[in-house]
């Protein structure tokens, strides 16, 4: 399969402090690829290097098989970007934002007008074409930013935390749009710290922390490889429940805050045991990406 992004030993230091430490990435065409990581993991730094606006300290980076150091212009012409922080042009309306942006790509006026109509319809903003940016909600701004990233009909769309700070409706709507893009054959690269988002959208993902890639694979494969298939969560500071769980040999317990997680291959016996005592409140569920994430990145709080 043809790969769209190839990184080897990609490294970035800021004033002697490492933000990205020698990562290798191969992102195949036509897939949705996720970068999952806590705050400060180095996600944005990695994306900025892909754009050619942040020169790597060392390592090799090719996008569309072109070296980023010398072909940034050409690469960006074929790529769309949704940045972590909105940077829509506040001096212009919704449609004007797309028009101005299209001009930076040198798109001819007639083609651009047609494209703007299409894009506004795609992100359900056709009726807001003449609204100033300041009057848009957070979700609308995000959708407009996505439309803006598509103005040059990119092969690769890079999205840095596309749904952070949005309500569930807005988030679902954006997920739907991203799936449509993926179905239309575009390669998507997105960063997120929402497990649900990664699980729903990504064909493949890497988990990143402290500038390193800790694991790579499809969401299902990652769960299979890194945690036991079943989890029992016991909430509350219940010493008896803990004692009960930690007494069982065929599993692993971990405590986070006031919740106790019990990971096991087969939870039947434990569930039966817990059900005998009505005072226990517990949740029995299949393991998911969050368990992998917490296992790999640790439980400590990030800034």
């Amino acid at each position, binding site marked *: 399969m043809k790969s769209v992004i190839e990184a080897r030993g990609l490294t970035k230091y*800021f004033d002697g402090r490492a933000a990205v430490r020698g990562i290798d990435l191969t992102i195949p065409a036509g897939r949705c690829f996720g970068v999952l990581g806590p705050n400060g993991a180095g996600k944005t730094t990695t994306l900025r290097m892909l*754009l050619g*606006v*942040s*020169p790597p300290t060392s390592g090799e980076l090719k996008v569309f098989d072109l070296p980023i150091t010398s072909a*940034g*212009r*050409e690469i*960006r*012409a074929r*790529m769309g*970007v949704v*940045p972590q*922080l909105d*940077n*829509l*042009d*506040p*001096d*212009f309306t919704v449609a*004007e934002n797309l028009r*101005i*942006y299209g*001009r*930076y*790509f*040198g798109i001819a006026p007639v083609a651009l007008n047609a494209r703007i109509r299409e894009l506004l319809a795609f992100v359900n903003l056709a009726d807001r074409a003449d609204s100033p940016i300041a009057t848009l909600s957070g979700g609308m701004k995000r959708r407009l930013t996505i439309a*803006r990233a598509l103005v*040059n009909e990119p092969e690769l769309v890079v999205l840095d935390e596309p749904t952070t700070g949005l309500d569930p409706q807005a988030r679902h709507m954006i997920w739907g749009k991203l799936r449509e893009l993926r179905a239309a054959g575009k390669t998507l690269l997105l960063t997120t710290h929402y497990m649900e988002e990664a699980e729903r959208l990504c064909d493949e993902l890497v988990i990143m922390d402290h500038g390193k890639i800790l694991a790579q694979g499809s969401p299902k494969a990652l769960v299979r490889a890194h945690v036991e298939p079943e989890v029992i969560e016991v909430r509350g500071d219940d010493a008896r429940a803990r004692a009960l769980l930690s007494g069982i040999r065929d599993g692993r317990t971990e405590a986070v805050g006031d919740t106790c997680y019990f990971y096991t291959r087969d939870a039947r016996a434990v569930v039966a045991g817990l059900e005998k005592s009505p005072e226990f409140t517990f949740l029995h569920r299949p393991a998911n990406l969050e368990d992998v994430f917490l296992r790999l990145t640790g439980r400590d709080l990030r800034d």
Partner: protein
Amino acid sequence: MLHIFWLPRFRYAAGAVWRRNVLVWRKFFTPSLLINFGEPFLYLLGLGYGLGLFIGEMMDMPYLTFLASGILASSAMNTASFEAMYSVYTRMVPQRTYDAIMATPLEVHDILAGEVLWSATKSLISGATILLVAAALGAVHSWQALWVLPVLFLTGLCFAGLGLIMTAFAQGYDFFNYYMTLVLTPMFILSGVFYPVSSLPDPLQVAVQILPLVHAVDLVRPLVAGQPVTNVLMHLSVLVVYSVASYAIAAVLIRRRLLI
């Protein structure tokens, strides 16, 4: 230097940035034009007529003409400086407009070239309005005064480049006050806008020759008064050297700031 930093960078891309600014300006056309007209009008009417009554002639021209030509040059300086500092900083830092542009095929050089061209364009616009006001007040003596427009554009380029250097270092708007107070205001007072440089003490007369505004005034004044212009090549060279050198320095500094 000229070859590396300047000429190859003015492509369609710089035009896109320039056009963006033109479109914003058009939106605020009326208020910005009012400001453009208002300030020089006050200067010319207040100082030109008021002082002119006592002064009469200065350097073989009515004081109103003398002052109008000084104001033409200094407003080109102020307009371009303001644009290259406050407006560019706004787009670079709080609005993150440049971050958005840098995700397109444009490069930092294209953005800066567009900004410098736009700043000079604003100098041209403000110059044209002042010239109209001055002409209406009878201060313009010859059609050769139209040549001041390209001179003001060049003056704009020169101060836009210098302003961009300040912007490269700015961490907030307050920073620009230093440059305004320590550089622009003294230049405004010492460059022959209100009185001829020849009335300054001898050593100072020599020293002020390094100020670009002096050369802009020396070009503009005879053009407005209908007198022959002297040392054209020398005056133009000073402005061109300032423009090219300041742009080159600013481009290096701002690239270093944005491409991290």
